[in-house]
């Protein structure tokens, strides 16, 4: 059985699929990309940044 990978749609939806040509080709051909560890960290940083910014606004 193939390993499973997480794929993100252009509109943000994340699904998990088998890493096979049959499963990945239709997704990759239509703008889906792999959710990587780095992307998760970037998203987390953005979330944290947003939280800090809202906090600053409240203080003002």
């Amino acid at each position: 059985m193939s390993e499973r990978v997480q794929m993100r749609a252009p509109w943000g939806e994340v699904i998990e699929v088998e890493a096979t040509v049959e499963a990945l080709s239709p997704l990759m051909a239509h703008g889906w990309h792999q959710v990587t560890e780095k992307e998760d960290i970037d998203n987390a940083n953005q979330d944290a940044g947003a939280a800090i910014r809202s906090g600053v606004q409240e203080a003002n």
Partner: protein
Amino acid sequence: MPIRMQEQQFGLAFRKQTNIATANTEAQMWRLRKTNAQLPIPTLQTESDAAEYGKGHPYAEQVFLTAWRSGGTLEKYLSAEIAAWAMAFGLGKVVKSGTSPNFTYTCTPLNPTAGDPDELPYFTAVAQIRPGGTPAADYAVIGCAVNSWQITLGSGPSRENSKITIEYVGSGRFNQPSGITLPTTLTEKFLSNGSLTFSAHGTDYIATRRLLTLEAGWQNNLMVDQGYYPGSGSQNGAAVSGRILFGVQAATLKFRAMMDQPTPEIQRLQNQTEGTATLTLTYDVNNSLSITYHRAVVRSIEFTEADGFAVVDCEIEPLYHSTNGILTAVAKCNVDNIGA
């Protein structure tokens, strides 16, 4: 003192740059064997004022620096590692799965219509001759992108019969000296012509033992001059490229096979029969390359002779498949983070 070209060292980053202007780090470099002598040493483009008016004569009085150009051609015997690299950087979209020693890279062309970038991943190439101290040459060529790759398989017992040619173009940016000490030469797993499996339109060309040669290629048609836009950047008084967009991309697939009774390619050309085509080269279970063309037709055939035998040259036209795209490449090797 004369310098022999075999003294050269060639390095290629296996990870992508963070942007076109930032070089890869030393830890992200391979040192590679190659079969062509050419090195990607940047060239400086100049123009004279010969054609300009006002000087009182039609001759040149001054030469102006205009732009840096870089890039080159890499010719190698085909290995699992360079195959994975070519698919990742040449097609642009990568999904990695697996773990050591079986990293699997599923690669497809970028599709800007579906929201993908219109620039391929950039990488750094290193060209060195007698590096360190006072080197003959020591350049890190920054912001390179793959213009094309071509896999060529022939008949014969030598490595010459399984090769890859990669053309790449640089942004013109460079570091001199490179600041990079290349690692020891990469140990590669050779994908021999004898390991090929190839089927098209339901015909197994290996089982019938008809196949003589096969060429598979990808062309990005990079729009190089378009990258020298206002504000693209400059280095040492000459312009450098700020982006390398890809143009109209195209896949190519052609082969030479012995004629058969009947030769099925004739009917397929006349009927424009659609089908899939798949080629696979294997070193072992952990090192291989497989390319699937999801929708293919015969574009042309030509009858000729080779070594006294009747043969047919067949050109396949890979077509766009509305669900799966034009092609999918799966490359396996034991190097992590290729194209990442």
